[in-house]
């Protein structure tokens, strides 16, 4: 399935909104309106925006703690995201979980993060689409150190042996956990692809267009039934693992030069695609969106304690899960199972 590249300005808007919304979350954390930690995604915007720009509507994503941009790209409303962060009743988890630990398997096709390793779950959605003869791909987003987990290894090996349409996007940032030490030997985590006999690519995670191009290549392979792909994006994360950790001044300066949004802005300006007027317009609409979400979420009521024990067990008439089957992406009639 071909998917027309988004116009460049849409990428710019996407990255800007991601940054603005995360800044709003950061402020809520700083002002103690949110208890809990923000795993900072500042600097990851080109990865989340560039990879999702290469996807089709029916593809499945499994974002991690820093992948706010993926949720926005898949159409999850900023209102929902802030209601979730503020743990409101109206949030997707009804206040039962924090941060980005929620998902949507009907429309946005976002696999819920569970705080346990879950690449195997993404392999499962990819396996489901394969056995149903659908052309969907599943994209899982991992932090570099997460590739040290047994879950990564078992899931990638399984996906490779089954030729699953699974793309594993690894954002390698200079930090692991709270401090800048190496939790693995290889220079490039893309080299881990050799262990599974699958292709592994490295891309500059600060260059949104390079990311989109690399992702398009990966998606083409996966959709063609060639099995999983490992795509490593080198990013530079400002701040520590969580918003709480501080970063040395010179690190911050170094980062500014590499800021994916500022890099893309310079590019668009040299192309003449972006000028001050446009910048202000975009900034204004972004601000309005964030403001609307903030107002909505801050005024949304908290969950009712009486509901704490609701939904302990799914009822027998629970809605079937997964995407609506009316028009499964790329479902090829002859291999299609009568599955519902």
């Amino acid at each position, binding site marked *: 399935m071909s998917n027309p590249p988004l116009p460049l300005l849409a990428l710019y808007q996407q990255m800007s909104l991601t940054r603005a919304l995360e800044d709003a979350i950061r402020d809520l954390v700083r002002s103690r309106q949110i208890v809990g930690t923000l795993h900072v995604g500042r600097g990851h915007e080109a990865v989340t925006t560039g990879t999702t720009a290469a996807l089709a509507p029916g593809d*499945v994503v499994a974002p991690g703690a820093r992948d706010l941009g993926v949720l926005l790209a898949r159409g999850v409303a900023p209102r929902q995201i802030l209601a979730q962060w503020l743990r409101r009743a109206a949030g*997707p*988890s*009804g206040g*039962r*979980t924090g941060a980005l*630990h*929620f*998902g*949507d*398997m009907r429309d946005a096709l976002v*696999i*819920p993060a*569970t705080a*346990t*390793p*879950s*690449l*195997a*779950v*993404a*392999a*499962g*959605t*990819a*396996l*489901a*689409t394969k*056995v*149903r*003869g659908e052309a969907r791909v599943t994209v899982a987003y991992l932090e570099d150190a997460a590739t040290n987990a*047994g*879950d990564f290894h*078992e*899931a990638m*090996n*399984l996906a490779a*042996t*089954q030729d699953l349409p699974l793309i594993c996007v690894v954002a390698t940032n200079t930090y692991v956990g709270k401090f800048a030490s190496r939790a693995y030997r290889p220079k490039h985590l893309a080299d881990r692809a050799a262990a599974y006999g699958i292709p592994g690519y490295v891309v500059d995670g600060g260059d949104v267009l390079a990311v989109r191009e690399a992702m398009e290549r990966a998606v083409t392979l996966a959709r063609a039934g060639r099995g999983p792909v490992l795509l490593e994006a080198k990013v530079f994360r400002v701040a520590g693992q969580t918003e709480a950790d501080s970063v040395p001044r010179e690190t911050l300066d170094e980062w500014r030069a590499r800021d994916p949004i500022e890099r893309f802005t310079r590019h668009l300006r040299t192309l003449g695609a972006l000028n001050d007027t446009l910048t202000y317009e975009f900034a204004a609409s972004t601000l309005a969106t964030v403001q609307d979400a903030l107002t909505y979420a801050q005024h949304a009521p908290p969950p009712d304690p009486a509901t704490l024990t*609701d*939904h*302990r*067990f*799914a*009822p*027998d008439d*629970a809605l*079937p*899960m*997964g*995407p609506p*089957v009316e028009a499964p992406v790329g479902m090829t009639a002859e291999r299609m*199972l*009568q*599955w*519902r």
Partner: protein
Amino acid sequence: MALNEETTYAGAIRRALREELLHDPRVCLLGEEVGFGAGGERPAHGLLGEFGPERIIELPASGGALIGVATGMALMGLRPVVELPYAALTGEGFSQVVAAAQLHWRTAGAMHAPLVIRAPYGTHADPWRAASPEAWFAGVAGLHIVVPSTPYDALGLLKAAIRENNPVLFLEGHYFYRRLREVLTADEVLTVLGQAEIRRDGDDVTVLTWGAVVYPAMEAAEMVAGEGISAEVIDLRTVLPYDAATVAASLARTGRALIVHDTPQTGGLGAELAARIAEAHGATMHAPITRVAAPDVPFPAAPELAASYAPNAARISDALRRLMRT
């Protein structure tokens, strides 16, 4: 399926899988040896040929990944059944089991994980592989644990488990596979989860048990019957959540409870039963609620040691006599 065919425990599981694979195209079977690897007496034998690789999916051996994969398939609207070579492998996928059990609550009802984990336990040469993990999951809310003790129940309960919208840990008595035989009619059997079966009526004392140890419990009940002790034997079948109503009704009559399981006593499923009974019926019991279970050690390999591991009819009948004396 011929009429009134004598069926083994393993055969009943195969029939349940086959009927549900036919009944619902969303059902699929995952495991290390569910296809070419499934030998003649194995429950999955022959299913690959009939349903093909889109439904019967052989995957590399990875206890951890298999359950995560099944969760992903469930999220996409399928109803996977995972077969593990032995039940202790749930320890490799422990987090994935808990995550699946919590999914519905975590998503405030938006999602659920309709998956079944099928695994044999018991009589393995190695203490590790022989272990039943039932106690590990006794505290995991959102999970069902089923331990069928007859081919008929294996058939009816597995079919019901596959139609259940919450994750089910389905523990199969490895020892039963070829040894238990029962004549089953061709009629469809669906045994509702969470309903106990009264294997023997009695008025003096209630024996609460499940799985392989149901048989020595029945034997013991017969032994003491001659001594004028009337023991009611209840096979819980679904041990989490269990059938509190049937238990309550029986205890209201007998006022005496003996809990029997073939897994270690400390922290076992019998503890929750005893606690619930003490809370609900403590004031009206005629005798202390008693447990007869395996000792607090793993299942031993040497036959001489294994022989004195699970409760036998002698130990159970002694306990019944003691209960009646108080």
